[in-house]
């Protein structure tokens, strides 16, 4: 009874306080319908949002051994960290942010190379646009930035989604493959960054494969 009364109070339906909102008035029904519609709309919208944000891109299929025809050489004194980025992907900003955090703690233990997608049909300026990720990429300390013309290298390493991160140990074995964000464009603690940190720290990661959230690198999401 108390609960019912409380909700009545919330709706403001007591006749003495709001005579035009009695349980039989037209306004009352309009309000109720509006309320239901509002809740429904919000539920739909929030669900869409969550689905969009938490649906990962196509899973990568990287070679388990560092390929010999790679444009870069495998480092033999440190693990090799490869990150594939679409320069205009807003969601990958979160990836770079997480990468920066990882490099802050463990940057000396890895040799980092960032492959920035460069379509051959589009001028270089498209990559280096100030509104894109290029300024952030250039700002990351201790990293090597490589233009990946027409995503040839990405294809070589089986990467499909911007934000794809691969870690090869000094022996060229694949140690980690996945994204380092928790959801699409969402910064914060995530399994991918935790896994990298564990591996370079010679600990056993809880995950060696994580979903990647971001734009498609070369024509598919």
């Amino acid at each position, binding site marked *: 009874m108390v609960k019912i009364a409380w909700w009545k109070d919330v709706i403001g339906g007591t006749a003495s306080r709001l005579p035009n909102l009695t349980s039989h008035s037209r306004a009352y029904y309009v309000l109720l319908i509006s309320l239901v519609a509002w809740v429904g709309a919000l539920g739909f919208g929030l669900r869409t949002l969550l689905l969009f944000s938490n649906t990962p891109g196509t899973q990568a299929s990287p070679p388990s051994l560092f390929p010999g025809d790679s444009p870069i050489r495998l480092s033999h004194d440190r693990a090799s960290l490869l990150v594939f980025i679409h320069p205009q992907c807003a969601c990958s900003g979160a990836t770079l942010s997480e990468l920066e955090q990882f490099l802050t703690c463990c940057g000396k233990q890895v040799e980092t190379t960032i492959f920035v997608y460069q379509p051959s049909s589009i001028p270089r300026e498209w990559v280096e646009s100030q509104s894109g990720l290029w300024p952030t990429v250039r700002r990351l300390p201790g990293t090597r930035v490589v233009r990946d013309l027409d995503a040839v290298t990405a294809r070589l390493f089986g990467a499909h989604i911007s934000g794809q991160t691969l870690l090869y140990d000094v022996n060229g074995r694949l140690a980690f493959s996945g994204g380092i964000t*928790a959801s699409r464009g969402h910064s914060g603690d995530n399994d991918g960054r935790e896994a990298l940190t564990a591996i370079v720290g010679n600990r056993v990661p809880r995950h060696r494969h994580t979903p990647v959230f971001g734009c498609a690198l070369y024509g598919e999401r």
Partner: protein
Amino acid sequence: MAEHQNEIYAQTSRWFAILMLLQWVAGIVVAIWISPRTWAGTASQVHPHVWLAVFLGGAITALPAVLAILRPTLPLTRHLVAAAQMLMSALLIHLSGGRIETHFHIFGSLAFLAYYRDWRVLIPATLVVACDHATRGIYFPQSVFGVLTASPWRWVEHAGWVLFEDIILVRFCLRGVSEMWEIARRQASIEAIGLDLERKVQERTAELEQARAAAEEANRAKGAFLANMSHEIRTPMNGVIGMTELALATDLSPEQRDYLETVRTSGESLLSVINDILDFSKIEAGKLTLDSVDFDLEELLQDVVRAFAIPAHRKGLELLYQNQVHLPAMLVGDPGRLRQVLVNLLGNATKFTDKGEVEIRVVEAGRDDRSITLHFLISDTGIGISPEWRDRVFEAFVQADGSNTRRYGGTGLGLSICSRLVELMDGKIWVESRGGRGSTFQFTSRFAVSAEAPAAPRTAAPEALAGLSVLVVDDNSTNRDILRELLLRWRMRPILAESGPRALEIMHREVAVGDPFALILLDAHMPEMDGFALARHIQDDPTLAGPRIMMLSSVEASAAGPGLRATGLAHYVVKPVTKASLLKAVLTVLGEHGPRVTAAYSGANESPDAMRILLAEDNIVNQKVMLLSLQKLGHRVTVATNGKSALEAYQPNAFDLIFMDIQMPLMDGYEVTRAIRQRERSDGGHVTIVALTAHVMKGDRELCLEAGMDDYLAKPLRIADLVSLLNRWKCVPNSSNCLSSDSAAGFPSSGPLV
């Protein structure tokens, strides 16, 4: 309190409506800024975040914002606002890429929600946060906790922080509401006190109103008592004074005459005392108000000084009058009260002066278009007032020296009454005096100038007087100066002589140079050679014959003896000489207008023609006084002892005049008068009815006139007043009505002197 709470709800809801709209716009801007498009290689499209910011943000904002505008006080509104605000936080966090800083939006929003002072709005807000985290913790743990394997209860930790703030805010809300209640209680208490105070004020006002009504009733009773007392005292006084005057007119032995004179004097003194006491009572009761009627000040002043001519003469005093003001024709004020003040001050001056002179002087103290302020000075050469008593003489019951009361009589109220009357006349009164060297009582008074007649000098002399030589013979230098000033003002050529022989010497000298005097003004009483002897000398000396001679005397013509005509006087003027009276006399003497010998001494002793008079009076003593007085004056009198008898006695054309007492049994004077006037309306004619009453309170005269009476005679009756009134209403015998005749000659003791 509820009203105040509603105000807070409404205001806070409106703020949130604005905030939510801003947040919606901000969300869209953030989405466009951070993630405008999504890419697939070189292809791109609008980022879903932008659409979500538009549509989901709009959906979150829409209903709460609309309700906040349309139904700002509705509980549902603020609960929806709370939920929507948390959802908007979630959206903004999402759109900003999960920035930790954006999480502060949640805590800021919670704090803002506390503005409602309704802790319950924190419940839906907290539930939204908890549900969001719980749901996402279960289904998308990495989206909220960043890891796929987070503890399913980690959302509780997040919700716990929100609850932490909630607890603080709930306490804040409760504290706020508590303070609002306290303020409301205090306000209610103040209002209750105010209402109580207002009620008490109303009660007190009612009590005061009752007290005021009681006081007014008491005042009315007091007024009625004063009127009754006035009447009850005056009625027997009328008998005493009237009968004494009648008795004095009979043959009496010197001893009897002395006794009766004493009775009359005592009666008049008693009447004066009673008048003073009644006036003082009226002043003290605040019932004394002044009339505002047109009056002729010059005439009033002349009347007053004439009234004191005989008493001053009897004491051997020189009574001087000097008016230095060009008076407007008519002033507006209370002539009766002004006369009272002047009579009182002149009476005192005469009373306290044994030798020398008494002077009344009027000068102008100020004037504007609508009013004039006059300064009256009454000087004497009497006993004066010592400095220690000077400031107290205007206090009630005070005489300058206690022994004076015994020596000179009086209540000591006269000056106090004068003082109050002068105050009422918008003036002030004071005295300058030195013990033994006389006093000068002075007062100012402001009068409006009547619009009835144009303001113009009253005593402008005709051109004919200019250049005429006049010889003034008077032993009193002040008198000589006054006359000289008056004559000079009329552009005459006065020459002054202080004695008879000196006058003769000057006359011979002027005749010798061919400039004889046209007019000679003689003082009757001079040492060595009096005015009459000088007049005879002039008459007897043919070389001096020709000038017109005017005698100025303190005694009346009738008292001057039968040989008056033999002196060859052209005119006889009783001092004090007033400007108007002297000019009139001079013009008469020099042939400008009027008879050379006036009624004053040619026919003053003649009785008026007999009139048929009906006397309606119930009081036996008053009846007797009136009857004897009227019969003595040669009139035929019919007596009616009550109002009804008077009405029965009345017949058209049967009487020339009716004296009507006001208070009578069966019918009072007013009723009888109304009945007579009613009859006259059908029968024609108009008999003169004169009220005869001891009612002398303000308004009595108006009541009499209103009832249809023609005149008013106050008791106690003075023979002089009676004669004056009869002369005023003198009529042709056997005619049906009498007309007022202001030009009629007066009674010997009070009539006009010129």
